[in-house]
C-alpha cells in the first residue's frame, strides 16, 4: 500500500486525476451544505443569466443556479456510474469465474450468452434494457450495469483460465485444497488486478452511459439534478446561453478523464511486469 502511494506520487497526471475525483466525491457527500441555492426551485425572473458573483456559473433555462445543480447532480451521476459498475462487476465476476474455472459446457453456455450481448453495441443494449424496464435513474443504473456484464466476465474468464492452467492451481489441488478454497484464496486475489483496472475505466463509460440515457430522457427525470439531464436541458440554448450546457459538459469530461487516467495508472502500478 505504501509502495502504491509512492508510485502514484511519481505520476503527476494521476495525482491531478485523483484530486479531481476526490473533489467530485466530496461534492457528492457534502453537496447539500455546499450548494448556495436550492437546485430545484425555479426562478423564472432570472432565466439564462450568465456567470456572475451571485450565480458563479450562471442560471439555467428555469432560473436555477447551475453551480448548485452541478454540486447536487454529482451525487446522482456518481450513483449511476459506480452502482452500475458494481452491478456489472459482481454478475460478470461470478459468471467469469464459473466459465473460466469449470470450462466445458458451463463455459460455452455463459460465453455464448455474453457474445450475444456483445453483438449489440454497449449503449444500444442499455437502451434496450431501459426501454423494457421503463425510464428512471434506478432502471438506467441497472440497464448500464447489465450491459457491461460481458466486458467484465470476459476479462475475469481469461484471467481465471490462465490461472487455472498454471501449476499454481495444480499444486494447490495436489495439496488437497477444494475448488472453492482455491477460487477464493488464490484465484480471486490474482484476478483482482486486471479486473480493478477494467472497473475504473468502466466507471467512466458508465457515467457517460448514464448521462446519455439522462440526455435522452430515459435516465434521471427532471427536475432531478443530473449532469446528463442538465446537458440535455442546455442543448436548446447552445448559441444564446452556452454556459448552461457547457458547465455540466465540462464537469462530465473532467470526471471521465480522471477515471480513465486513474485506471491507466492503476494498471501500471498493478502490472508486476512493469515493476
Amino acid at each position: 500500500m505504501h509502495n502504491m502511494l509512492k508510485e502514484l506520487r511519481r505520476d503527476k497526471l494521476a495525482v491531478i486525476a485523483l484530486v479531481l475525483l476526490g473533489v467530485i466525491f466530496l461534492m457528492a457527500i457534502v453537496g447539500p451544505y455546499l450548494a448556495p441555492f436550492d437546485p430545484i426551485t425555479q426562478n423564472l425572473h432570472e432565466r439564462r443569466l450568465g456567470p456572475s458573483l451571485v450565480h458563479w456559473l450562471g442560471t439555467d433555462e428555469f432560473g436555477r443556479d447551475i453551480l448548485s445543480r452541478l454540486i447536487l447532480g454529482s451525487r446522482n451521476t456518481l450513483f449511476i456510474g459506480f452502482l452500475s459498475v458494481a452491478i456489472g462487476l459482481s454478475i460478470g465476476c461470478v459468471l467469469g469465474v464459473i466459465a473460466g474455472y469449470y470450462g466445458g459446457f458451463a463455459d460455452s453456455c455463459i460465453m455464448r450468452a455474453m457474445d450475444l450481448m456483445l453483438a449489440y453495441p454497449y449503449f444500444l443494449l442499455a437502451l434496450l434494457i431501459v426501454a423494457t424496464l421503463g425510464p428512471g435513474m434506478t432502471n438506467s443504473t441497472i440497464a448500464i450495469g447489465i450491459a457491461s456484464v460481458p466486458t467484465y466476465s470476459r476479462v475475469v474468464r481469461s484471467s481465471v483460465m490462465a490461472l487455472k492452467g498454471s501449476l499454481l492451481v495444480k499444486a494447490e489441488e495436489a495439496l488437497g485444497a477444494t475448488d472453492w478454497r482455491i477460487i477464493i484464496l488464490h484465484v480471486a486475489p490474482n484476478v483482482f488486478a486486471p479486473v480493478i483496472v477494467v472497473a475504473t475505466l468502466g466507471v467512466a463509460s458508465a457515467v457517460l452511459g448514464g448521462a446519455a440515457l439522462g440526455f435522452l430522457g430515459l435516465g434521471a427525470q427532471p427536475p432531478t439534478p443530473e449532469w446528463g439531464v442538465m446537458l440535455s436541458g442546455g442543448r436548446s440554448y447552445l448559441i444564446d446561453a452556452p454556459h448552461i450546457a457547457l458547465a455540466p459538459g465540462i464537469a462530465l469530461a473532467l470526471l471521465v478523464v480522471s477515471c480513465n487516467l486513474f485506471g491507466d495508472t492503476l494498471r501500471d502500478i498493478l502490472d508486476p511486469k512493469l515493476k
Partner: protein
Amino acid sequence: MYVEKPQHNENDTLLCVRNLKTHIRSDAGEIRVVDGVDLQMKRGETVGIVGESGCGKSMTGLSILRLVPGPHGRIVSGEILFNGQDLASLDEKEMVRLRGNEIAMVFQDPMTSLDPLFAVGDQIGESMRFHQKLSRKEARNRAIELLKLVGVPSPELRIKDRPDQLSGGLRQRVMLASALSCKPSLVIADEPTTALDVTIQAQILELIKQLREETGTSFILISHDLGVIAENCQHVSVMYAGKIVESADVRELFDNPLHPYTTGLMESIPRIGVRKDRLEAIPGIVPNPLDLGEGCAFSPRCSCSEEHCEQKAPPLVEVCPGHEVRCWKYCNHL
C-alpha cells in the same frame, strides 16, 4: 522434530498400481496416455519413472492423485491401492482429504507453482490449517520448522518473503516443505529439478535423499534424466508411449539394461572418461499416440525390430527376479 504418523510394518506395500489406464479425449480420437501401467512400491522406498516427454509419466503421477485434467481426461480403468485402499473408487471428498495429507505432489516449475501474492510461510501453512485445523500461529511455527528441515537459511525471516523474493532453488525447497507439511507417506515429485540449474539440481536431489532418510517418506521421482534416477531411486520403471517397458532395481537396470529403448537411453548419455565423437541417438521420434497400431510401440525406432514386433505387442515378462521387460526378444523361453 519430525514425528512419524503411526508406522505400519516396515516392509509392507505402500502403493500398488494395477493396470492403470488414463485416456484423454481429443478431436482426433481417444489418446491412451497411460496404457496399463503397473507400479508397486514399499514404504520408505523411492521409485523412479523415466521416459521421454509425452510418454505418460506425469500423467501417471497425476492419475495416482486423481488429478487428471478434466473434462477431457479420465481414468478409464485400473486399481490404485494406497495403504490397501483403492483410490480409483474413492469419491472426490475423500480424495481432497487425502491429497496433501497422505500423498503430496511437487511440480516441475517452482516459479509458477507458488502464489505470487502470498508469503511463503502462509502457503506452507495453508494445507496444515486445512487438513490438521492448526491455528495461524501453530501453522507458522510448523512452517519455520519445515523450512529448517528443507535447509532454508534463517527461516524465521524467510517465511515473510513472497515467492518473487526467492531464488529458484529456494522456491523448490519451499515446495518440498509444503509437500511435507502434513507428513504424507508418499510424495510424488514430477521433474523436481528440471527447471533448476545443475548445482541447485544436485542440492535438491541430495535434499530429497536426506528427507527420505530423516522422515521415512516414500518418493516417486518422475524424470527424463537417467542420472537423477540413478542417484536417488531403489527401483526404476522405464516408460514408453504410456506403457512400462522395463522395470528393475536401479543397479540391475543400469548394469543389465535389456529393453532396446533402455539401452538406447543409456547410450545417449555422455560419459566422463570415454572419448566419443558422437553420442548414440535413438532414431525417430515418439510415435503419434493416436495411431500406435497393434504392435510394439517402439518397433518403428527399434534396431532389433522384427516382423512380428509390428504385428503384436509384447507382454511384460519377468526375465529374472524383480526385472521385468516388455520385448519379444526376451519372450523366447516362454
